[in-house]
Each structure stands twice: as structure tokens, then as C-alpha cells.
């Protein structure tokens, strides 16, 4: 098992784990975005997808263990390597630093995606905690939201202005993080070839933009209007808010927010 320890202790081994878990989490982002895009296909498509996903309990448990495991390893190694990297500079830092990379054009005040992975990663961690509280653990949900079907739930969460702002910023930050992370993982895993590396780097940047726009777009999604939870009230407000406004607009395609998820037609 010493090779396993070496994987977690040696500098190169740590980058294998960092890159491997990072790519796995990128794969999750693709699946997650694909699923979320069904919100645009309407309540029926989205609810049937969500319900089918949650029916398969075994798959869900395995996937969640995998995702949390990958996330924890990724974060643990981020802390370890970041503290080692800070220490490696020594007691005195440079008074002046300038990049010598001629093409380093994407930067804000000298901050580029690849030099701010720790910061964007920390922001993403904070966001994931909130996102899980919103959708998985439903910490802030009122009775109406708890009883709502997945489509309406998403609309209710995203009806809050605070969530709109946070989710939009998070989408951009995740995009910045993966725009370096995706290509970097290939390099760390040794999957580098002079012919393919430029393509991988381009894909990485396109992926970052796609993630930012894709996830960010749900902030402007009109599901709130469709399901009738357009109320400016935030989710923390009294539970009476939702039912009072819901029936008025529930006549369109969306089911009433109070419909239990189980009754959504499936097939």
C-alpha cells in the first residue's frame, strides 16, 4: 500500500489525485448542466428526469459517495498543496513580480485563472454548501417548497434576488476555475501531446465559458413566471406567501406548486 501513500504524499502523486478528482467533477458538471437544461424543456421533462434520478436509490448513493469523496480529496489536497506552496517561497517574498509569459492576456490586475485556483476554489466550496442547503437538505424551505415538485422547487429557490446574484457569480467563478482546471488536469496526469495540447487548452476555455453561461442562464430563466412563484418574497418569508400567489398563475403548463412530486406523470 506504500504506492497509495506515495500517491497522497509525493508532490506528483498529489497532482494525480487533484487532476483525477478535478476531471471527475468536470464530468459531473456536464451531467448536472445537461439535467438542469431540461428546465427549459418545461416542467414535465424536468420533473420526470428528477423523479427517475431519485427513484434509483442505489445509483444515487454510489454517485453521492463518489462525488463527496472526490470533492473532499480535492479540497484536502488544495489545502495541503497551498500551504506547502506558500512555505516553499521562504520567509521573504519578492518585492516585485512580473510574468514573462508573452500571451498572458487574460488577467485582472495581474490575477489570472491559473494563479487564483485557491481563491475560486474556496468561493466554489462556499457556494456548494449553500447550493446543497437550498436543494438537497432544503434548510431554508417552507412547507410549500417542501411539498412542491422539483421544477417548482427550482423556480422557488431562484425567485429570491439574493440567490439570483449568488448563483450568477458562482457560475462565473466555476467557469473561471474549470477554464484552467480542465487543461491542467491533463498536464498533471501526463496526458500531454504537442499535437493535442493546444486543442485541450481551447476546449478547457470553451468549457469554462459554457459552464459560466450555462449555469448562469438559470438566473434569467422564466420558470418563476410559469409556475407562479414570481413573488418577490424570499424563501425565508412566511409559508403563506407561496400558496397565496401560486394558484393564480398555475393555469399554464406548470402543475400547482402544492402538487406532490409523486403525482407528476412519468413516461
Amino acid at each position, binding site marked *: 500500500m*506504500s*504506492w497509495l*501513500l*506515495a*500517491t497522497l*504524499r*509525493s*508532490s*506528483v*502523486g*498529489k*497532482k*494525480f489525485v487533484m487532476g483525477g478528482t478535478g476531471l471527475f467533477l468536470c464530468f459531473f458538471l456536464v451531467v448536472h448542466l445537461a439535467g438542469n437544461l431540461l428546465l427549459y424543456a418545461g416542467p414535465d421533462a424536468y420533473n420526470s428526469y428528477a423523479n427517475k434520478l431519485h427513484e434509483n436509490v442505489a445509483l444515487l448513493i454510489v454517485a453521492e459517495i463518489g462525488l463527496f469523496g472526490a470533492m473532499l480529496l480535492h479540497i484536502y489536497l488544495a489545502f495541503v*498543496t497551498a500551504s*506547502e*506552496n506558500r*512555505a*516553499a*517561497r*521562504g*520567509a*521573504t*517574498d*519578492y*518585492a*516585485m*513580480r*512580473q*510574468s*514573462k*509569459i*508573452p500571451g498572458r492576456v487574460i488577467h485582472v490586475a495581474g490575477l*489570472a485563472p*491559473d*494563479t487564483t*485556483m485557491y481563491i475560486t476554489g474556496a468561493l466554489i466550496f462556499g457556494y456548494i454548501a449553500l447550493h446543497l442547503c437550498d436543494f438537497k437538505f432544503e434548510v431554508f424551505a417552507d412547507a410549500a417548497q417542501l411539498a412542491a415538485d422539483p421544477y417548482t422547487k427550482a423556480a422557488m429557490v431562484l425567485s429570491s434576488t439574493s440567490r439570483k446574484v449568488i448563483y450568477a457569480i458562482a457560475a462565473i467563478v466555476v467557469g473561471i476555475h474549470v477554464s*484552467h482546471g480542465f*487543461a*491542467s488536469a*491533463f*498536464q*498533471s*496526469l*501526463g*496526458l*500531454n501531446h*504537442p499535437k493535442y*495540447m493546444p486543442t485541450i487548452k481551447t476546449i478547457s476555455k470553451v468549457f469554462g465559458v459554457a459552464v459560466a453561461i450555462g449555469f448562469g442562464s438559470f438566473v434569467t430563466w422564466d420558470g418563476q413566471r410559469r409556475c407562479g412563484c414570481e413573488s418577490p418574497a424570499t424563501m425565508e418569508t412566511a409559508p403563506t406567501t407561496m400558496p397565496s400567489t401560486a394558484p393564480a398563475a398555475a393555469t399554464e403548463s406548470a402543475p400547482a406548486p402544492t402538487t406532490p412530486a409523486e403525482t407528476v406523470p412519468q413516461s
Partner: protein
Amino acid sequence: MSHSTTGKTLNLKLRVWRQKDNASRGEFRDYALVGISTEMSFLEMLDILNEQLLQQGEEPVNFDHDCREGICGTCSLMINGQAHGPDNGTTTCQLHMRRFHDGQMITIEPWRAKAFPVIRDLVVDRSAFDRIIQAGGYVSVRTGQAPEANSVPISKNDQESALDAAVCIGCGACVASCKNASAMLFVAAKVSHLAQLPQGAPERAARVLGMVGQMDSEEFGNCTNTSECEAACPAGVSVTHIARLNREYAKALYGSPLGLKGELLTSSGTGGD
């Protein structure tokens, strides 16, 4: 004050790191230089500074230099925050004063890394690199006299790529320019050089495990693929070699008896005797 761009001489303000020894605290000290020719190399400009300091009865600025033609890897210096100064693919000794303008302030610092302790002023101890090479950066068979050139066939691609890695002069600019003070480009250059040649192939697993183990115990940082090392490298060693180092490490760790037994992974000695 003239700011002529075609003038043949420069008046400069230097901000130089002065540090008596490793135990002392260092500080920047400002010096003024007048009438520096644009034809001078950067190190010649420092020679002028030191003559001036000697005349004033001050201790001259200590800096590393040797061949002064860009092949020995002895000179260093962080010049205005850039390893070996503003030019790509050159060492400090090849940098000329025509790259600077009249009245410019030039900040000169030593390489800064925990593994490169300052000895004095701008001179740092780079023997951590020597210990990494001792941990496997060589071919240990006796080769005798040079063999007939065509007796060991090496493909054109492998030969070119191996020599592209072999050009590393071991100056430490990669460590200096890396935001993590990582020595990955240096280690990658040697591992990649020897792994692509038949002479280096038999010891490739022990080499990469030993050298990475030594690099880690010297407390260099980890690679985050920002490629600053590649841009700062005066010999133009590409980060492609870092990917090959990573491949070599994976093959050695998961596919060789040495790696699976966990030998050579963290020791500070060369081990394996």
C-alpha cells in the same frame, strides 16, 4: 534631464537586495549609476556598480556569475520581478543595458525559495539541485569510450526531444519564477532527457522516484501548471517535459517493483544500495 531613446548612455537608479549572510535580515539599498553604456551587459553594469562601491569604501554587491555567455547556469537575479530580466530565452549575463531606458529604476533581488537560502546579497545556495541530480539524474553504467555512433539507433524524434530537455543549465529560474517555488521543470528536464534515450531507460523507474522524492524533501513547492517556468527558462525547456515526468512517475509508481514496494519515495539519500 534628457530622456533620449537614442542616447548611448543611461543614468540608472538601482534598488539592490543586500544581506550580510543567511542569518541576517536583508534589506533593499538604493544606488545611483551615471553614464552606463547601452552596449554593456547587465553583469558589466553591476561590475561598474561594485567598482564605484569599492571606491566609496563600501562592501561590493555579491552576485553569481561565471561563463558570461549563457551556458554555465551560474548567473541568476530577479530583475524588476522577472527571472533573468525582461528577455525570453536569455540569461542575465546575455541581457544588455539597451533593454532599459534612461532614468529607470531597476529592482534586483536574489532567487527566493526556501530551498535556495541566501548566502550573501544576491547569491543563493542552489545545492538542492545537486542533491536532486545525485538522487538519480545520471546513467550509472560504465560506458567506456564513445561507441560507434550508429550502433545504438535512436529515432530522430526521441533524439530531438531528449536534447531539447538536456539543454537545461540548472540555473534555477524555473524555481524563482514559479509562484510555488516548484522545481518541476528542472527535475522534468533531467528525467525526460534520460527517459527518452536507450542509455537512460534501464534506470528510469529508480531515477524518477528518487529525484521526485529528493525534490519533495528539499521542500520545493508543487506544480500548478501556470507555465511561468517555461517562459522564464533561458534554455527554453518546455512544460511538455513536466507532463512526461508525470507519466514517468505514474509508470514507476504503479508499474515497477520499486514503486510498488515503496522504495526511494521519500528518502533524502539515494538509497537502493
